[in-house]
């Protein structure tokens, strides 16, 4: 029982990170209709910039994540302007090639600035809680709580605020939205910026329990693609449910079956979804 509770919290913390990363990706897919293969690299860059502010400049932890998230928002906007916007009328493969190029660029940049060595980010949040005999570290509680707060804020932003509603409008009908005066190009910038911001929050939260390296985004990239395919491409609730479902499935299979199966679970899920319900759990109307 203790083991189960321990793993439940480990799974929830992992799910929080997956969610934050996956939501950005699914938003970008909804608005720009492209799989942003550089998403993991933005996550990595977010982690390094948080590290820079926290460790090199000595900014407090939460503030460091906040500043990094804002900076990455700008990077996301820049990525849209410099890479995806000029390609908006070209065939889909061009976006993917450009995204892979951006990914390698960010990785090389991080290696040039911070080196290839692993780095450790120290967190001021130490200690842990004893929940029914399981030892849960405070950092994991922070991850879960922050993920919930950020997700709630995001839901409010998209459903209630004018700027957020424009995202949903463009997702639903690009031409219709531009007819009523919404600029698709502004919304594209906003969305990519937002996705980079969310990825940075995820990275800033998880970095203290893991290590920073220029390739840290690669593994996450694969997982978040599995998540948004499971949840349904472009679907917000899909990304949330998918994120927690995949994280819990991973942790629990690793615990009760074997670690090898735990590692493979994302891909088993992916294949199963594509075979049985290719549109994912929360299907959105697919428009051209």
């Amino acid at each position, binding site marked *: 029982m203790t083991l189960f509770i321990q793993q439940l919290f480990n799974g929830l913390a992992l799910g929080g990170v997956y969610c934050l990363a996956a939501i950005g990706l699914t938003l970008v897919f909804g608005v720009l209709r492209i799989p942003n293969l550089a998403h993991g690299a933005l996550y990595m860059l977010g982690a390094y910039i948080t590290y820079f502010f926290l460790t090199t400049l000595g900014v407090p932890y939460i503030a460091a994540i906040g500043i990094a998230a804002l900076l990455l928002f700008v990077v996301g906007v820049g990525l849209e302007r410099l890479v995806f916007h000029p390609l908006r009328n070209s065939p889909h493969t061009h976006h993917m090639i450009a995204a892979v190029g951006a990914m390698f660029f960010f990785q090389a940049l991080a290696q040039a600035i911070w080196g290839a060595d692993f780095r450790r980010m120290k967190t001021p949040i130490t200690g842990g809680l004893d929940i029914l005999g399981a030892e849960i570290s405070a950092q994991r509680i922070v991850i879960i709580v922050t993920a919930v707060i950020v997700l709630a804020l995001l839901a409010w932003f998209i459903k209630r605020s004018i700027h957020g509603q424009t995202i949903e409008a463009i997702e639903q009908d690009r031409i219709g939205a531009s007819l009523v005066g919404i600029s698709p190009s502004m919304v594209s910038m906003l969305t990519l910026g937002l996705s980079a911001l969310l990825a940075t929050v995820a990275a800033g939260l998880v970095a203290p329990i893991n290590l920073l390296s220029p390739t840290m985004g690669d593994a996450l990239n694969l997982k978040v693609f599995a998540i948004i395919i499971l949840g349904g491409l472009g679907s917000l609730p899909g990304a949330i449910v998918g994120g927690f479902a995949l994280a819990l499935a991973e942790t629990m299979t690793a615990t009760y079956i074997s*670690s090898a199966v735990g590692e493979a679970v994302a891909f088993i899920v992916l294949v199963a979804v594509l075979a049985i319900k290719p549109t994912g759990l929360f299907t959105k109307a697919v428009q051209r």
Partner: protein
Amino acid sequence: MNSVPRSRRHRLLASAAIGTLALSMAACGGGGSGDGDTVVIGYTGPLSGGGAAYGENVQIGLEMAIDDLNADGVEVDGEPVTLELKSLDDKYAPSTAASNAQRLADQDKAPVVVSPNAGAIKAIQQINSGRSNFLISAYTSDPAIVQSDNPLTMMIPPNFESYAAEFTETAMKHGGKKLALLGTQSEYGQQWTESITDAWKDAGGKIGGDNSVDYATVSDFAGPVSKALAEKPDAIFVGGPSQPTALIMEEARKQGFEGSFLVMDQAKLDEMATVTKLDNLKNSVGVLPVSEYEDPGTADFLKKYADKAGDKKVPTSETALNYQGIAIIAKAMEVSGSVDDPEKIRAAISDALPEVDDKYKVNGFPEEITEQGHLLNPNLEATYLDDEGKYTKVPIEQVSDNK
């Protein structure tokens, strides 16, 4: 498509031709000029991607050796020779490593190519004695590369299989009979897991399930650690790159594990201490840190390393052993009187070993080379990091490279 006007086209063509010419001249310039002969030492290793840190550690060792050797002066057949390092990135891919090696041998006439990865070395062994001939300076502890009887291979580190028996004995003495496996899922990690499993069983110990995880892709080690600890082990086998290994050990201590650790040779205890508190690493058996060696050149080497890489970086055996390796090769060139015949160089290694200057002996210097090309240091030692944070040396009896 816009068409380019004729005059512009001519100008484009002309500038392209001049550009190509300039480039090819620059490429030629690197070779024969300067005083005496320049000999290129080739290196193909991961310089970007996930293995970049490892590849750079090796590269630093090669650079340090070449700088020192050039400063001392290398003389082959009465002629002064300048060594030059040429590095190519293979991103850890064996096929890229093989084409890099081919390029280094053909274009740069490198008589020696260094590679730090078993898979890459096996691929290079397909091409190094045939149409092109070059010596592989092989940095891997996988004995499979000498079992293949390649005539032009020099294997630098000890065979990893030698560690299992002694690690088992030490860990049992300080922990107990029940072992949990929590190594990494790389090919090398799995070979280690197997080797430790066999040794542990031979010593009458009990082993739980295989909890190996891929250190490179797991975002949170708490899950795998909780699972391994649920078996209530007395000892845990861990190991992959130093830093994630350190995180796993920290997590295990946090979750209340008090037994001993067996640390695979890829992880270095002193390097691990840079990311976690030494307290979390105590009661472990692993390879001896470079700084604990008492070889004649070690102290100077550490100083030079700190100058080059900064004092925050910990020198590891990747750097130190490749430093020694290049010194051995340079001496073998001097003894054989040849800089371009890899067979002569390889044949001269045995006679060259006792002649190498003491300053290049930094990390357990080898005394002989086996017929298959494995450098052997008869006094191999590992270490036990005790509860006070002190390193105690543990002598290792080496096993044969043949299965």
